[in-house]
């Protein structure tokens, strides 16, 4: 259809034009982050700074504890992801393979909660954490995010697609439910779990509003929160601001390039009933 309307050259031209616009902010960030302060506000801009000032990254690290923010982000992302995987595997197994009273009602109730925007939960969750004394702790950044209806729903779909005969075969071999789940089902559905973990990790790494609200001290900030605080500290030192932004952006870009297939598949699947 498209090929009848447009020539090959036109297709490439349009896609390249759009592609440049998509990449420009990333390139502009890297380019500015390597400039000397007196090269930043120069027009026309030099795209390749000569010589590259790698010390901007060290300088940004010196001005704000980005190392600490980075460690916080890694801890929060890792533990939220592991937590979500555990709760998801167990709950999805119950919904997919165990018949129990109230199963459909409970599942519908959980799916219903997906309609509710997260902002509705903000105030009560903050009050709950205050009561628990968790404000400004890792627990506040991690625990509320260790279960997800969306993930349970997605993984249940995958478990349902595993032939039931497998279960009977395992039964004959004398494996109990728990062993059957961990030794047979989990390895079979590993690609799905990798996808769920990746989507969770990206979401957790980039989360902003929640960490902004539940952290008070500098030591507990995650990268995005630390970055917004840094924007006031750095003022107009754009070369440092761009270096700091790169701290937040580059790890996810690398993760994406490594696991592109999984991430893309996961999002397509979640969007279209897979």
């Amino acid at each position, binding site marked *: 259809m498209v*090929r009848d309307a447009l020539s090959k050259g036109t297709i490439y031209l349009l896609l390249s034009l759009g592609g440049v616009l998509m990449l420009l902010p990333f390139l502009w960030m890297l380019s500015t982050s390597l400039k000397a302060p007196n090269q930043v506000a120069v027009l026309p801009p030099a795209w390749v700074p000569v010589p590259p000032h790698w010390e901007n990254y060290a300088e940004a690290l010196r001005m704000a504890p980005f190392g600490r923010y980075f460690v916080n982000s890694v801890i929060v992302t890792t533990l939220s992801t592991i*937590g979500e995987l555990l709760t998801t595997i167990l709950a999805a197994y119950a919904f997919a393979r165990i*018949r129990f009273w109230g199963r459909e009602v409970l599942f519908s109730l959980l799916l219903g909660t997906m309609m509710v925007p997260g*902002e509705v939960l903000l*105030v*009560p969750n903050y009050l709950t954490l205050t009561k628990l004394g968790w404000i400004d702790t890792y627990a506040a950044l991690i625990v509320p995010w260790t279960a997800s209806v969306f993930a349970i729903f997605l993984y249940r779909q995958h478990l349902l697609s595993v032939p039931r005969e497998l279960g009977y075969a395992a039964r004959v071999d004398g494996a109990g439910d728990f062993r059957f789940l961990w030794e047979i089902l989990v390895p079979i559905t590993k690609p799905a779990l990798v996808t769920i973990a990746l989507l969770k990790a990206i979401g957790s*790494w*980039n989360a902003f509003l929640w960490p902004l609200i539940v952290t008070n001290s500098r030591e507990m900030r995650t990268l995005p929160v630390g970055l917004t605080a840094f*924007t006031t500290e750095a003022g107009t030192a754009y070369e440092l601001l761009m270096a700091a932004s790169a701290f937040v952006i580059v790890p996810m870009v690398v993760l994406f390039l490594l696991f592109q297939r999984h991430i893309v598949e996961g999002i397509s*699947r979640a969007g279209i009933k897979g």
Partner: protein
Amino acid sequence: MDERPTVASFFKAAFYLAPALAVLGVFTIYPIFSSLLLSFYADYDYFHDVVYRFGVDNYVYLLHDPSFWQALRNTALFVLGVVPASLALSLGLALLLRQRLPGMAAFRTVYFLPVVTSVVAISVVWRWIFHTDYGLLNYVLSWFGVSPVPWLTSPRWAIPSLIILAIWKSLGYNILIFLAGLSAIPEVYEQAARVDHATAWQRFWHVTFPLLAPTTFFVSVVSVIDAFKVFDEVYALFGGNAGPVRSALTLVFYIFEKFYREQDYAVAAAASYVLFLLTFLLTLLQLWIGRKIAYNR
């Protein structure tokens, strides 16, 4: 595994569900109800956790708060600015990216990159791009004889700046969903239209586009809800404020201010329920429009 629900299977299920339900119960299910209740606290004392009176006062307060209306207006403008443009562009790009030509995979990667990127971090980058005097955007516009636009410093341009950033950010996700939807359409239909000598445009408009309706509906619902909840971009573009003269105050930013800066929990809860209601109604509306279009063809 077990064919009939039994007492044993009930307890077994309870064991498997306990961890997830503990977290979801405390942090998802309970707050949905407690937030609703909180939004009706008319007179209360947080220190001693006593409610003296329930009522619709918080909702009445919202109706009389010019800031709230400002936030609604801005949010509506933002949604109208982002969603149709993003949908049209991403559908067009998805059609191009579907071609079996060399290099398409690399293009897809490029278009998808912004999706995995931290909104806050990339907004800081855009803040620099939008800079009135030294920003890349005004520099490029100057080639075409456009005088510098005060993107982030004038109330007139605050929402348009947000719209530009949000379109750029949302394209990749929408393209991906459209690609998945397009690949699910059997090629037979288009071949049949080809046999009937339909032009490329006719084939798109009368064959592909109607068959793509469920995908388009899904993308538009997700986009509307997403755009409705815009917050991170505002916070990062305008340095923790709602833009020049609060011209970029959006609904979630309003909730954030009420809750975090003014500690007015009940009003914040009421505003969050208004957000919930609006996104819900908009979803129904889109469903209705989708049905009408589908049946009236």
